[in-house]
């Protein structure tokens, strides 16, 4: 049995692990053209802010890889030949497979304004991007950031940490409007301003103006001009689905897969950022661009490739991130609609967050500790926990396990309820400590 995996991200690696857990003898070949192989992409933000070195981003040692026992070939796949169950590499050679996994990930949606190709226009999608930003930040003084979601904020804060003065442009009237509610956006915005980042609302990039090939200033649609030597953007991501599309696999925005991570070809699976996964609960196929979701999908795909039909049960999507220095956990369904600053989905985001069934919002908070929960008829549907994270683990469990909350529902919805206390009491009754 020969398994070929295209990609070197966390979904690919998880698939190798799961194949190995059930098939000691099968041949596993990993193909990828990333010069660095497997490293922590979410960690790039912390490399940018100076919290760790780039060397520290690599989780696995040579010994770890040796133990897993797979062949790694640094090669770009140019074609999938389904009729011959083989893939073609850049040099024209063919490799046959019994089972194939597409774990090719996603790339940053490019900026489509004049001047996007100037030196000094950067994104944060890859280790090379981060290294390039650090080089430019040493020379430059002023940066402009455009985009929404987590990555844009990581860019703004990273550039600030590197001593640049930062202008953050928002097309809409608040930050990350499709996930956060107004109060949450305002908390983040106030903190960004305190840190020294200048926010510009209702500001849309019209053109990046260069001088001798380098960014020199940006012109906005409202006629304003801002001088800068660096323009950083994070407006969303796009699954790398061309190989699949050209091979005639079903592709919508990502590669469509069923609960077994299988495409419409029984020998080919897809997982991670490139996969659009069928969600049993909503009956729709959604994109999740979350590290842990990619890991779980890759693991399930590997088991299925090894003949252990195991459905991937999409767990409650959640992400923990730092927004303006504030630890924020986003669980289940919390947001809605569109975000002017994003084209589709962003890194660290889940489409499931925006599937809102009937629910009542209950929230409490002060200063920078804030909890918002979406209360359904019998269960909690989603939550945003900002600041103090004491509640995030209980809430994660209550939401994921769909625990019946009738015992506390009225208390939660009472006027001026101390939501934190109600949840802690409920939780401690569920988990009595002797």
């Amino acid at each position, binding site marked *: 049995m020969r398994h070929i995996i295209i990609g070197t991200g966390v979904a690919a690696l998880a698939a190798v692990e799961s194949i190995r857990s059930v098939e000691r003898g099968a041949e596993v070949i990993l193909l990828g053209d990333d010069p660095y192989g497997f490293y922590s992409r979410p960690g790039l933000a912390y490399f940018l802010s100076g919290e760790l070195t780039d060397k*520290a981003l690599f989780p696995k040692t040579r010994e770890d890889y040796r133990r897993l026992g797979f062949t790694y070939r640094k090669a770009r796949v140019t074609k999938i030949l389904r009729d011959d169950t083989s893939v073609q590499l850049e040099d024209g050679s063919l490799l046959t497979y019994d089972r194939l996994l597409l774990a090719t990930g996603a790339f940053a949606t490019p900026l489509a304004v004049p001047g996007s190709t100037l030196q000094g226009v950067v994104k944060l999608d890859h280790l090379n991007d981060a290294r390039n930003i650090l080089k430019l930040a040493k020379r430059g003084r002023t940066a402009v950031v455009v985009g929404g979601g987590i990555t844009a904020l990581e860019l703004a804060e990273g550039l600030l940490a590197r001593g640049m003065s930062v202008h953050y442009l928002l097309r809409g009237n608040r930050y990350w409007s499709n996930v956060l509610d107004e109060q949450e956006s305002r908390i983040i915005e106030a903190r960004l301003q305190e840190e020294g980042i200048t926010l510009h609302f209702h500001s849309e990039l019209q053109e990046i103006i260069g001088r001798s090939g380098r960014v020199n200033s940006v012109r906005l649609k409202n006629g304003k001009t801002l001088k800068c030597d660096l323009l950083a953007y994070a407006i969303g991501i796009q699954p790398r689905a061309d190989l699949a599309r050209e091979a005639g696999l079903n592709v919508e925005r990502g590669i469509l897969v069923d609960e077994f991570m299988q495409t419409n070809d029984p020998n080919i699976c897809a997982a991670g950022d490139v996969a659009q996964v069928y969600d049993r609960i909503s009956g729709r196929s959604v994109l999740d661009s979350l590290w*842990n979701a990619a890991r779980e999908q890759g693991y399930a795909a590997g088991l299925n490739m090894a003949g252990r039909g195991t459905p991937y049960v999409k767990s409650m999507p959640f992400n923990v991130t730092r927004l303006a220095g504030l630890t924020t956990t986003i669980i289940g369904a919390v947001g809605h609609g569109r975000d002017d600053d994003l084209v589709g989905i962003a890194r660290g985001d889940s489409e499931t967050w925006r599937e809102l069934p009937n629910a009542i919002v209950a929230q409490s908070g002060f200063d920078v500790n804030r909890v918002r929960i979406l209360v359904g008829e019998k269960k909690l549907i989603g939550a945003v926990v900002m600041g103090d994270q004491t509640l995030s683990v209980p809430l994660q469990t209550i939401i994921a396990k769909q625990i019946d909350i009738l015992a506390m529902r009225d208390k939660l919805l009472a006027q001026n309820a101390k939501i934190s206390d109600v949840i802690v009491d409920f939780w401690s009754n569920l988990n009595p400590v002797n």
Partner: protein
Amino acid sequence: MSFLHIFKKSAKKRATLAQGQVVPDSSRCVQCGICTYNCPIEIDVRAYAWRGEAIHRSECLTCGECVARCPRGVLRFERTDLFRAAAK
């Protein structure tokens, strides 16, 4: 009995000073490596987080450096309760 004391820092501190171990919640972990990078005795905390195992290493100082620096709340201290561990 009220459990609101868990919000109090002093309780946290007492728990830390007690005999305990660092426990990861691997579903929160993105393998960035800040924990391993900051461990004063070079324990590869991240590898434990990948496997979802507690850091049951006798040389761990439970200094809290990895717990405090993790940007995603992956790590926490748990009391090592010999009598309850057997019952789990």
